[in-house]
């Protein structure tokens, strides 16, 4: 059995005394796996993923990173192990340049200044995500798809064992949806790391995820392989739409009525 990277169990969380946004959720991701987190808007996906890298602290429950309690890590250790692409990224007064943003991903690995090695890593990743030609552009001058790719590049530059991705494909065109998911797949396989990605597209989840969890109202409705967890019943119950799972050319697709 592969090493368990992230194990969360019975996580409960609420924002500042409000009602429970997460009510006893958990997951388990091993090396080499992509776990898809699905669920309707407002079901607590973003909140959950932020608990996994300690941006938010759950009130209850346990989160283990490589079988050690997440609380016991230092800030820098967490940053070196867990990369994060937020759903939204705002940049205030004047936004940094693309190259500098990707370079930010190297921060957990630098002592004081970035070196030549960091630079070559950053360039290689930027080539791979096809943002190298944007290197000197300012972040707020990019299209949303381009900025999405830049942020993913930054998370990959972080060289983390766990990639937390909050809707990595939401602004991308068809080709880049495939390419980004394919790239995440490739990185997870080659570097033997793992990823938790929030995905809205059921087809993408079917194709690229090894496991999924389906959240509804802060609770887990179903979990398992995509085929086990995403069935006509669970989809109808959670999203309120009728759907069929069809096999086409050896792949499973979700048809929504």
């Amino acid at each position, binding site marked *: 059995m592969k090493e368990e990277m992230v194990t969360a169990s019975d996580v409960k969380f609420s924002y500042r005394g409000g009602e429970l946004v997460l009510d006893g959720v958990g997951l388990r991701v091993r090396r080499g796996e992509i776990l898809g987190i699905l669920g309707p808007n407002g079901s607590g996906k973003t909140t959950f993923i932020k608990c996994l890298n300690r941006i938010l602290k759950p009130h209850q429950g346990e989160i283990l990173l490589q079988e050690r309690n997440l609380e016991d890590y230092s800030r820098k250790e967490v940053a070196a192990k867990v990369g994060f692409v937020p759903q939204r990224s705002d940049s205030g007064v004047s*936004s940094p340049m693309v190259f500098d943003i990707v370079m930010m991903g190297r921060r957990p690995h630098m002592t004081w200044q970035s070196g030549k090695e960091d630079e070559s890593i950053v360039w290689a990743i930027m080539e791979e995500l096809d943002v190298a030609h944007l290197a000197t552009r300012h972040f707020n001058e990019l299209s949303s798809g381009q900025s999405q790719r830049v942020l993913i590049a930054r998370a990959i530059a972080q060289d983390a064992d766990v990639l937390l991705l909050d809707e990595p494909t939401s602004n991308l065109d068809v080709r880049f949806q495939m390419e980004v998911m394919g790239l995440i797949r490739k990185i997870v396989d080659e570097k033997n790391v793992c990823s938790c990605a929030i995905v809205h597209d059921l087809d993408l989840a079917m194709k690229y995820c090894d496991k999924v969890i389906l959240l509804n109202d802060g609770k887990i409705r179903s979990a398992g392989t995509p085929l086990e967890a995403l069935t006509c019943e669970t989809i109808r119950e959670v999203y309120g739409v009728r759907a069929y799972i069809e096999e086409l050319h050896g792949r499973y697709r979700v048809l929504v009525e």
Partner: protein
Amino acid sequence: MVVVIFVTMGYSFTVGTANLTPRESYEVLLGQLFPDHFPEYPPNYIFIMMNLRAPRVLVGALVGAILGIGGCIMQSILKNPLATPYTLGVSSGAAVGASIYFIFGISIFGGHAGLISNAFFFSLLPVCAMMFVLLRRTVSAVTLVLSGVAFSYVFSSANSIMQYFGDDSAVAQVVFWTIGDLTSSDMWMVPVLFVGLVAYLAITWYLGKDMDIMRMGDDTAASLGINVNLVRGLALVVACFMTALAVACAGPIGFVCLLAPHICRRLVGSELRWLVPTAACFGSILLLVSDMIAKTVLAPQMLPVGAVTALIGAPIMVYMLYSKRGMRS
């Protein structure tokens, strides 16, 4: 830019209401440092140089630099292009301190340092209050700006009330002080401000990279291992502290904080490690030039330098805001 500062400083030494030739000015100055090599000058020349001109120029340069840096830090931390340390109530706090000194004659330290200590203490009140909150929980940039503005209003109404009851000459003094002026510069301020400035530059250099990352959002910064609350709190406190120091020495001189970062961003981009030193230089130059104009335009009458910086600064500011379209960030 550093060269420009020194040239401007060098020239400023020679400008003043008294009729000293530039050569005489320098010989007096250098004569203080190396007494053997220069001719003796009458004591009143020495007095003019050492007590009036030299402190004015040196304090002006230092205060300008400190104000310029403060603007950079605040705009970056508060994610607001109009933010300055003054936004957080530093200047209005200082004005209250000054009012209490002038109108009621009450001060924390007696005598000469009364005004300065009062202004310094009161300008630190808002940031202390904010620190108190920041230690307990995370506060967003917007909340900080709004609470700073609220503080400013509280202070300015406190000020109005005091002025309402104060006698005319005291009120006039307060008003004059709040314009900002370098005439009360003193030689002892120079080493204090200088040491402060060096420490200030070092701290911002150290925090600069993290503050740059924080512009991408707090969550991103936290996921890269930055203690967001600590960096923000530290930057705020240091910036407000240094600005309070500058304001206590020279009064709340306007626009340097706002203008220097904006102009320098066009020159060197927005990376704080480069922006901060550039803005410091620019702030110095702006204040020195304004001071020279203040000294010469209506000579022998001297204008308060705060009024001149605003007079020069405001149009440039407005021009920049309107020409912003089509410009790189």
